Structures are given as C-alpha cells and as structure tokens.
C-alpha cells in the first residue's frame, strides 16, 4: 500500500460523502411536504392491475413460509383478499419486522399488511386503516424461569424483536435491572429463547403458542400478558384515496365475515369485536 494511494483513497471517500450530502441538501430544499407525495396511488394500482403488499414471514400465525417455501398466514391471506376485492394482481414484498414501515415509506410496497399494531408512534409516520385483527403481547419463557409479573423480570435477560409492539411496550414496564437484548427478526428471538440465551422473550401470544407446540421439550409457557393491541393496514402519509378504500374494505369484510374466518382459520381462536376507528 503506497502512501499516495492511501491519501487518494481518503480524498475520494471524502469527496463522495460531500457529493452525497450536497444531493441530500438539494433534495431537502426542493422536496414539497409529504402530504401531497402519494396522490393517485389507488389509481395507479387499478391502472397497473397490481398491488404491492409487505409480507413478513417469520411471524406465525400472521406470516410464515409454508412447506413449499411460499408465504402463508393470516396477514398473507388478508393481502390476497384485498387484491381479490380490488380485482388486481398481488405482489408480495418480503420484509423483516423492522423493514415493514421503511419498505412502505420507501415506496417498495403500496400498503403494509404485516400485523402492524396501531400505535401513536407509528401513526406519526404512516396512516392506519381501521383494525382488522387483534393480538396480545406476552412474555414467554421456559417453565423453570420464575416470572409472574413485570417486576419479576428484574435481573433477567429478556429478548425482544426490533420494530415490534413488544419493543415499544416491554422496556417501559421492565425494572431497570432487567437486561433487554434485541434481535432483527422474530425467528432469532425465538431461537434465543429456546437455546436459553435469554431467560424470556416478548412476542405475540400466537407466536408463543406456536413455538411451544413445536418445541415441547423446551417447556415454553406464557408468563404474563403485556398488552392487547389491534393491528391494521398502513399506507404512506398522503395516500388518502387508498386509505379511504381500505376503510370501506374493512367495513365490508367485517360485515360479511371474511375477516373473522381468515382470523379463525390461522389463529384457531375467534376474532374479538373490532372497535370502530
């Protein structure tokens, strides 16, 4: 490695960063507010005869890969129903849990249907349709781990998945001596719990049941319920046409029982009364 090459490389790198920063500054100066950003997404979907929907497939029973590695689960079925009711083709955009909202905002997907619980923080960034399902966040762990309430998490190692409702709720109720660690997808969090790398983990009650059923030796049980939440489809800020369609779509499919039957089929429990939004 010659010194001249080194300095050259450093200068090229610095120049590249400066150029990129300049592009960003220009973009900042010229970009109009996002409220008008996505006008006509519904029109575009109907014209292209294609809707792109996020698919998160490590989150049973909402999204999984079936035996032939195809996306399946209640949210995938919901996305299929949406495309069918729109009369367009469905393109599933595979994402991990933390990518659900970024993929939507970046325009990779038109709508996010990936068990996104409706929260204040998310509502500041995306627009939610009325809820089409409900889930409970629980702390689950092996039988030998003694946790009965939030305060019992003191001194324990708790695994959570980034960008999930459990990430948003569990740290707030955990004692300060609880050690919370984060994983990038639900599969890794479950693996950490089964292998004993964490004492317990936060997840949906369905995920806890699914992992307990598939790993009877690990003796996984629900410790306590953190929160019950409602999840719905999300669209980019400004996509009011698509949002209005989704409102109508939820109303009709609630009324004709389609949402309830999808929910029942995949979760094996009846759908609770969904509040009006």
């Amino acid at each position, binding site marked *: *490695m010659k010194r001249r090459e*080194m300095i050259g490389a450093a200068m090229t790198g610095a120049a590249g960063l400066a150029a990129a920063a300049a592009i960003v500054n220009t973009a*900042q100066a010229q*970009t109009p507010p996002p409220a008008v*950003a996505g006008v006509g997404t519904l029109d575009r979907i109907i014209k292209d005869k294609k809707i792109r929907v996020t698919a998160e497939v490590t989150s049973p029973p909402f999204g999984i890969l079936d035996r032939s590695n195809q996306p399946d689960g209640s949210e995938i079925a919901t996305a299929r129903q949406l495309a069918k009711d729109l009369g367009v083709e469905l393109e599933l955009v595979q994402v991990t849990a933390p990518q659900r*909202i970024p993929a939507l905002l970046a325009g990779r997907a038109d709508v996010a249907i990936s068990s996104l619980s409706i929260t204040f923080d998310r509502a500041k960034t995306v627009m939610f349709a009325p809820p089409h399902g409900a889930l409970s966040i629980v702390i689950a762990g092996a039988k030998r781990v003694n946790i009965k309430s939030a305060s019992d998490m003191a001194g324990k190692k708790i695994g959570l998945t980034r960008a999930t409702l459990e990430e948003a709720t569990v740290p707030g109720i955990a004692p300060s001596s609880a050690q919370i660690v984060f994983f990038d997808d639900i599969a890794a969090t479950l693996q950490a719990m089964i292998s004993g790398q964490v004492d317990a983990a936060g997840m949906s009650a369905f995920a806890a049941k699914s992992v307990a059923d598939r790993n009877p030796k690990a003796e996984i049980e629900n410790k306590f319920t953190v929160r019950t939440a409602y999840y719905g489809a999300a669209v980019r800020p400004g996509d009011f046409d698509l949002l209005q369609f989704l409102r109508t779509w939820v109303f009709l499919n609630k009324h004709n029982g389609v949402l309830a039957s999808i929910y029942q089929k995949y979760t094996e429990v009846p759908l609770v009364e969904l509040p009006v939004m």
Partner: protein
Amino acid sequence: MKYVFQFGIVWDHLPQLINGAWLTLRLSFGAFALGFALALLLAFLRTSGPKPARVAVAAYVEVIRNTPFLVQLFIIYFSLPAIGIRMEAVTAALIGMSINFSGYATEIVRSGIESVPRSQIEAGQSMGFDRMQIFRHIVLFPALRTVYPALASQFILLMLGSSIVAAISAEELTAVTNSLQSTTFRSFEFYFVATGMYLAMALGARLLLHAFYWAVFERGRPAAAGWAR
C-alpha cells in the same frame, strides 16, 4: 418518490451511534489480534508442522472459508448452548469474528511463508538455527512484509463484515442503527450516517495500517534493499 430528509434526529442520537461504532472498532481490532495470533500458529503448523497437523489446518481453513459467517455465528451463539457452552452475544461475536478471520489470515500468511526463497532457509540451517528460530528470524518477517497489503485488506473486510453480528444481538453500529431507525422510522437518515461512519472507520483504519507498515517494515531499512521490492 419524494422524501423530506430530517437529520436533526440523527444528531440527537449521536452518542448511541458512537457507542455502536466503538463496539465495532473494539470487536474488529480484538478479532484481528486474536485471529492473527491464531493464524500465525496455524500457518506455522501448515507449512512446518507434522503431517497430521498440516492436514488438520488445511481442513480448518477450508471449512471456515467455505461456510457463511452468519451460520458460523449462529452455531456459536444458538447451537453451543445445547451442549452447555453459553456466552454473551459480544463474546460470541468476538470469537466468531476471530475464528472467521483466522481462516483467511492463515491462508494469507501461508502464501507469504512460501514466498521466502528456499536458499535463505538453507542458509539459516547451515548456521545451526533450529526450526523455530528459522521461522521467527528468517521466514516470518519477510513473509509478513510481503502479505501485509493482503492482510490489511482482509482487516477492512473483517470490520465491515462485523455488521453481521447484529443478528445475534451484539449492539455494534449496525444493530444500534437498526434499533434507532425502527423506533424513529428515519431509516434513510440513520443508514446514511452509519454508512459515513463505516467509511470513516475503514479509511482511518487503512491510514493507521499504512503508518504501522511504514514504522515496522520501511523505517530504517537500507535504501539498497529497495531492489527487492
């Protein structure tokens, strides 16, 4: 697609990003030191050791270099607990990175050792040096000088590859960035700044490695030796 960049939120979280970058640097230099020490030993065994040791090292190098780093990490962090070996995520990351680096570095150091002319080794033997002395005084130094650029590049790859350890919950720069973007939803801004930090660290590390090369291999070297380059 129109998007309004908001970098203010990134500066609010800068201390967390710097913490993450600090762990990235510690993991990288730690794995470099451990992996390089292991590689020296393995390269010695590979070139001068008994036959079974040579075969064993060759097998080790092939297994490490022909399997994904992520899978190696998962084995250390998720599978070893099944046989009672349990460690913190950062420890698992350091061990995984060291082992992975040692596989590549062994092969690099070996090629350096084999580039040392046979006549120099014979000169050492005729002066009554034993095998270890020949390795230390005659072979190793020129060998490392020859392969230094390759080792330096491998170090940069190691540092950039460290982003993978986010998958086992080691809170280095990529993991911190993922957490911040997932709670603020400002993914462009955070990934953009993280990219700049990686670039700065990589270029800084290259400058440092270059200075090290100059201090160890170039300084005080007689000008006449220049022909050998």
